[in-house]
């Protein structure tokens, strides 16, 4: 999930250039307040993890496809 300030940034393009991962958008919804993208990231485990860390570092909220696995 992208916060408002990142909506106009080409983050998925940048992700594909920075890391050896294959990206595949499965669902997306972008409003002027938030961007929600369901993105498949495929590749070696360490590259996938590095890609997720980078996304988090730039301010994207990264969840597994299940969203919240930890319940009360």
């Amino acid at each position: 999930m992208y916060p408002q300030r990142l909506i106009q940034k080409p983050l998925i393009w940048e992700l594909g250039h920075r890391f050896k991962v294959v990206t595949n958008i499965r669902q997306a919804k972008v409003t002027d307040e938030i961007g929600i993208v369901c993105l498949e990231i495929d590749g070696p485990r360490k590259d996938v993890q590095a890609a997720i860390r980078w996304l988090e570092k730039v301010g994207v909220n990264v969840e597994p496809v299940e969203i919240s696995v930890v319940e009360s």
Partner: protein
Amino acid sequence: MEKQEGFMRALKCRECGREYPLTATHVCEFDFGPLEVVYDYDRIRKAMTRSTIERRPESMWRYRELLPVASEPTVGLQVGFTPLIRADRLAKRLGIRELWIKNDTVNYPSLSFKDRVVSVALSRARELGFNTVACASTGNLANSVAANAASAGLKAYVFIPHDLEQGKILNSLIYGANVIGIKGHYDEVNRLCAEIAGKFGWAFVNVNMRPYYAEGSKSMAYEIVEQLGWQIPPHTVVPMASGSLLTKIHKGYQELVKLGLASNGECHVHGAQATGCAPIAHAQKAGLDFFKPVKPNTIAKSLAIGTPADGFYALKVMKETSAAADDVTDDEIREAMRLLAETEGIFTETAGGVTVGVAKKLIASGKIPADSSAVLCITGNGLKTLDAVDGHVGAPREIKPSLREFESLVANEVKTVSA
């Protein structure tokens, strides 16, 4: 799907409608949408009448045709059919004509509504041939999986954040579950558990078993309707964590209408959250159909999900049923817990305080009219969150073992009986 499995027909994607076989799977391969169990309602209509239901034992399994098991359930046979209590004293304090409490604080065996979803997930897991079950939880779900797995002889792995309070850990360890504390922040714990669920051949109740697991919540709706004399209440107030319970209560009501077991009348399903974690309530109040994730900060830990998986669907149900949502602060939660305890003798955990507190606001604002009737879903026992009220409910007054001292202490409260 060709194979008949009880009254289930298939798993179906809630986004695109594609159907899948009734296996341990939870997301659509095409759009990653969540899968949901669909049933053969024509066959259920022939098999299930009010009188057949009423003749069965008082547990959630008296509605078994509408629950996702292929044959007789094997786990949690005593779960559910908790009391529906007419709460006149609380109604008077909240300013409403008629109020009911659906009291899952006494659900069996682990004192929360999670026993409903877990007994369904574990019964189905056994049917699918699993002998190890797992979950990722910070409290009630872990306790319920540990307890129900123990009674069924299933091996259980329970994943928790490593810094969870000791009391909550003991409540799972006592049942002999394998409790694994994960060091890391919430998102990391979340992602690791999703990975574990994908890699190990276990029945992860809220991951690959989720389509079955979530259906267990519907039993709360069936019981409410039956206990009200087969009437759907005009207003139901439901606490929201992932938002799943609210959507399933609504689905339960709709199914009873579809089967002709209840009539289609006024029905609003309202949502309750804590102000410190209210992504769904805030979206509802702002008229949005999506929520913005938040970092939870509330004493209502059992509702503290900042990115609720069913938030979108809960918003949809509230819109469809012209319902409202609201949120309450930590102080309001404690005050509501105390109000429920003092008026009805029910000690709820913080989530119940959220439900009562929000009901109070919805009644005061007229969103639930004062001349109407409402059911409040109270989902967990107060003994689970003693720390939340510690220091907020007063303390015992101490005296020496002296009658004179006691008489002096209560002189202004009671009349002394003369000898």
